[in-house]
């Protein structure tokens, strides 16, 4: 069966950090896949998880929920979680939800790896 998700998620290990790259629409069909991938990254217990949103044009509250959950787990495990390369359109929804201060949001993966 088709799962109807228009999203791609992959990850890469860079030193002690895991970079999770997302592309597509992070909506109700795509969020579960992002959640799985972040979980896998977290299970490997990296010091830092960078979530690269440069290829995300659309996110709804299911995406926010996924990232809030990831942040809670990261805080529990003492992992640093950083969001990077967010489009303005996507940042808008973080602001509406008052989550722009809750997350560490930086402009590039480089910055995220060194933040």
């Amino acid at each position, binding site marked *: 069966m088709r799962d109807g998700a228009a999203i791609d998620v992959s990850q890469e290990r860079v030193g002690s950090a895991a970079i999770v790259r997302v592309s597509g*629409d992070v*909506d109700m069909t795509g969020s579960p896949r992002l959640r799985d991938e972040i979980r896998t990254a977290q299970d490997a217990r990296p010091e830092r998880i960078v979530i690269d949103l440069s290829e995300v044009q659309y996110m*709804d509250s299911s995406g926010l929920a996924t990232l809030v959950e990831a942040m809670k787990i990261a805080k529990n495990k003492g992992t640093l979680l950083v969001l990077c390369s967010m489009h303005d359109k996507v940042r808008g929804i973080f602001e509406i*939800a008052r989550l722009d201060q809750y997350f560490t949001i930086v402009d590039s993966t480089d910055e995220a790896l060194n933040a």
Partner: protein
Amino acid sequence: MSATRTAPDYATAHIKLELLSDPIYLSGAREMVSAVSRRLGFDEVTCCQIALAVDEALANIICHGYNRRTDGKIWLYLWPGEGVPESPTIRIVIEDEARQVDIEKIKSRDLKDVRPGGLGVHIIKEVMDEVVYEKRQKTGMRLTMAKSVCACDNNTGGHRDA
């Protein structure tokens, strides 16, 4: 925010969309609304916000109304406002045949109590000018939303402080 109204005048809607409560159709519905908003004269940011409100409303119907059943029906009706492109208006009514819930229960969590979920209704209310939930006559719910941009102000909404 929970006034009881009479049913809208469906016959005058410019666009009617009926879709199954399957999440794979969320993107089709929101892209349609976004494209129409653009043609009505809304700027890019506002079009995205209107599409987001529609997406959140439909996702809530699928999750909470139909409990993730994918064979429920959802209707979306759209009316453009009269007037110039510098002051576009859009009115959207979304209806379902899902379970009826008390209007007071349709609300997001406290924003300060950060946890996964509980943001959809907040987003809808933040982004749209008018948001009214009500029970339909016999079965299901109705959500009426409207958004206008006045030519005289620059507030396209969405980033107001609550």
